[in-house]
């Protein structure tokens, strides 16, 4: 995301000061199946949810479910940061959550199918270790949906 040289020096120093520890182990999984057979879900940390769902709070370890059929106008974003703005998302949800592009890749045969359910988190305010229980729960739900490929999309 974004070149370090494209942001003000004060911000660059702050970003580089963040704790980004490597994993204790190497969670590598070899390519088990061609992309054209995979069932793909999107997990976004953009704090998206359906308009009627509870808003994300500043430090929020919960997740929201986004059914694949959710129309763009039914989504809102309650992640917030002074370092990005929502105008891109409001103009075209796919710039953050490329659900229409995923459907296109499925219809072109590039991927096998699109998951029935996608997921959203609040991507700030907690250390990576704190989100592990949430992610394990998400992983179980993805398996129930027979998902075998996930695009983790930041914001």
């Amino acid at each position: 995301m974004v070149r370090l040289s494209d942001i003000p020096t004060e911000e660059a120093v702050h970003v580089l000061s963040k704790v980004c520890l490597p994993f204790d182990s190497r969670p590598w999984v070899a390519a088990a199946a061609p992309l054209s057979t995979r069932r793909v879900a999107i997990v976004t940390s953009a704090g998206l949810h359906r308009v009627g769902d509870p808003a994300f709070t500043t430090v929020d370890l919960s997740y929201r479910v986004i059914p694949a059929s959710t129309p763009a106008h039914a989504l809102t974003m309650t992640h917030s940061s002074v370092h990005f703005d929502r105008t891109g998302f409001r103009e075209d949800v796919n710039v953050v959550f490329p659900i229409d592009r995923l459907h296109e890749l499925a219809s072109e045969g590039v991927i096998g199918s699109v998951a029935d359910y996608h997921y959203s988190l609040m991507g700030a305010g907690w250390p990576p270790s704190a989100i592990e229980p949430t992610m394990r729960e998400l992983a179980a739900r993805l398996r129930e949906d027979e998902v075998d490929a996930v695009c983790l999309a930041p914001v």
Partner: protein
Amino acid sequence: MRENTERMQLPRFLWVPFELGRPFGAPGEPDFQRRVLHAALALLERDDGPVILEDFPDDAPVAPTAEGAEGWSCPISFHPPEGGEPELVRETLAEIERLAPWHEIYVAERGRAAPPASGMTHQEVIRGLGALAAGAPASEACRNLPLQEWVRLGCEDVRTWYLEAAQGQPGRAQSFELQDWFWRQTAFARLIAGAAMYFARSADGRQQMFGRRAMVPRVYMRQLMPGVDPSPGDLPSRPRSSA
């Protein structure tokens, strides 16, 4: 950031050079977005791990600027009306009034206007921030949300509206020009900063952090919140009331 990702040693990662908030490039560019998504998913077919950090080769498409045009600027000058409300609140309400036609044009052209995430009207947000800037907790503006949450969501709602209104005007403003205009030239940015000072001076550590780090970009703090360091440390004391 690529630098942080290198340190984390993730198994499969596609680094993209796009601005924050637009991880798939640019709105209204489906072919480009599809390329980015496909490039990310294609990493699943690679077997040269355990760490793959791939760079997406292209910058996001940028809307062309009119030939011969200079940098974007907002031609609207704001004249606050007389009234009984605090000056910064009146200035901001006047801005909203002057920008509203451009926001209507923006919505008519782009066709999407999601409801505000805070559930508050702009006027409620502005008056609530005005109360905070004046040192009062503004409880009547809360709409059942905790203080920091309505401030966070309300500021974001109104800032988004400003940036959309600016994009409704003639000319194609670049993102950095819009941000610079918003934070350097609008009364609403000064109002946000005034409310941020309320939090930054709080005895509550979380409120302090919120005021120092979450409301105004660091690069504009020197102008909007003089004397406040975003890092933990001493803060200027609350000025004595003249009342």
